[in-house]
């Protein structure tokens, strides 16, 4: 038997990200908690980047979807801590990204204690790269720019099939 809790969670989990619509908020790892209290639901989400403009749309979509599913009183809470990491993108999410031609992120860099070292080499010189081309699978890819169409994506190109592609960067 499906409990209300599980049902509300399932409804919230199918809301998609406005900028990466092939992913649900659950796949992306921004959906942190869904709790049913009385006839209301409290959904907790976390932003990917500080300036992410999609957060407002996520809030509206969550409220809309849950209302349609019969939950009248929907509250969306934001948590900032712990900060979102690309490691939270699910296995399913990684597969969907790759199918859409966007290379999924590798493991996020771990920062221990002490100052974070500055990276002076340009990563475009690393061949073979850790990021494989989502079209042909080649590891002969290089970075064009670390900044792309949204805060979470970088631009790369493949030297084997010559196609450009996007890459969700590791944070």
């Amino acid at each position: 038997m499906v409990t209300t809790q599980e049902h509300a969670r399932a409804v919230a989990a199918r809301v998609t990200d406005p900028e990466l619509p092939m992913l649900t908020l659950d796949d992306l790892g921004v959906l942190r908690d869904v709790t049913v209290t009385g006839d209301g639901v409290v959904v907790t989400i976390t932003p990917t980047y500080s300036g992410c403009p999609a957060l407002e749309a996520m809030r509206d979509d969550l409220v809309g979807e849950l209302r349609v599913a019969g939950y009248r009183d929907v509250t969306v809470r934001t948590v900032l801590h712990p900060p979102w990491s690309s490691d939270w993108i699910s296995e399913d999410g990684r597969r969907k990204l790759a199918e859409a031609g966007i290379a999924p992120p590798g493991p996020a860099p771990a920062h221990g204690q002490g100052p974070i070292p500055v990276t002076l080499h340009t990563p475009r010189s690393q061949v073979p790269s850790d990021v494989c081309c989502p079209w042909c699978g080649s590891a002969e890819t290089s970075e064009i720019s670390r900044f792309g169409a949204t805060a979470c994506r970088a631009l790369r190109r493949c030297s084997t099939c010559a196609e450009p592609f996007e890459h969700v960067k590791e944070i």
Partner: protein
Amino acid sequence: MSFDNAYEAITEQNDARWAFGTGFDSPLSGVDSELPEGVDRADLAAYSLMLADDALVVSHRLQQWCTHAPELEEEVALANIALDLLGQARMLYSRAGQAEGGDRAEDDYAYFRTESEFGNVRLAELAQPDFAFLVATLLVFTTWRLALLQRMTGSRDPVLAAIAAKGIKEVTYHRDYAAQWVVRLGDGTDYSRQRMRDALEAVWPYVDELFATHPVERRMAEAGVGADPASLRDECAAVFGTVLESATLEVPQVSPRAGVAGRAGRHGVHTESMGYLVAELQSVARAYPEATW
């Protein structure tokens, strides 16, 4: 649905034609806003405002590069960095509003304060005449802010600590971007090297101010909420040394630009370029104070 004028149509609430809607909520909406015990509210508000002003003013300078960057990739990179800093500024303004306990929100701070009420360091506001000047400013600013945010992750204020922890991941990228360009231009052609060196010499008089401690910063550091900027000096100097050595350049030997009777950006005493920046930043909000977006 028909409207009498176009403006009415675009301000309709919940209009699905806008990707992200209109009428933005506070970025801290739904975040636990409790204040840490024993922390002075006025100091916390003033401190949050200083850090927000730094981010907003640098963000605005970066936004001015839109359509002026040397190539499309840089255009996109600068807009991304500006957006991250704008996000940090919005959260910090909201935190200032919560600490103040009044009814001021992010827009009131950004759009309805005068130039002398802005507490950003002067480095943030400098007009950026060329790309070398931009990357020089950005290298100094991001190195300093990253060191500051790293210390702030241990803040007694859980909201500032969380904003800092998020910000670190972003500013690490921003600093790499600036550092790689400084190296590329410094260790490039004779001409690019000269332009990079000139830019560093023009920016460097404003570096010393970053490590001067304002009374609010001192009290917040003592209260375990903020970091004393003076304590960041050695770490920043080490980064500048590493980057400039790689760029085959030297740290400029120039005198610091003095404030007015010891007062500078943190005290609301700015350079001439700040007046123009604030006027542009606030022009729409001042002309249409009831406008929503």
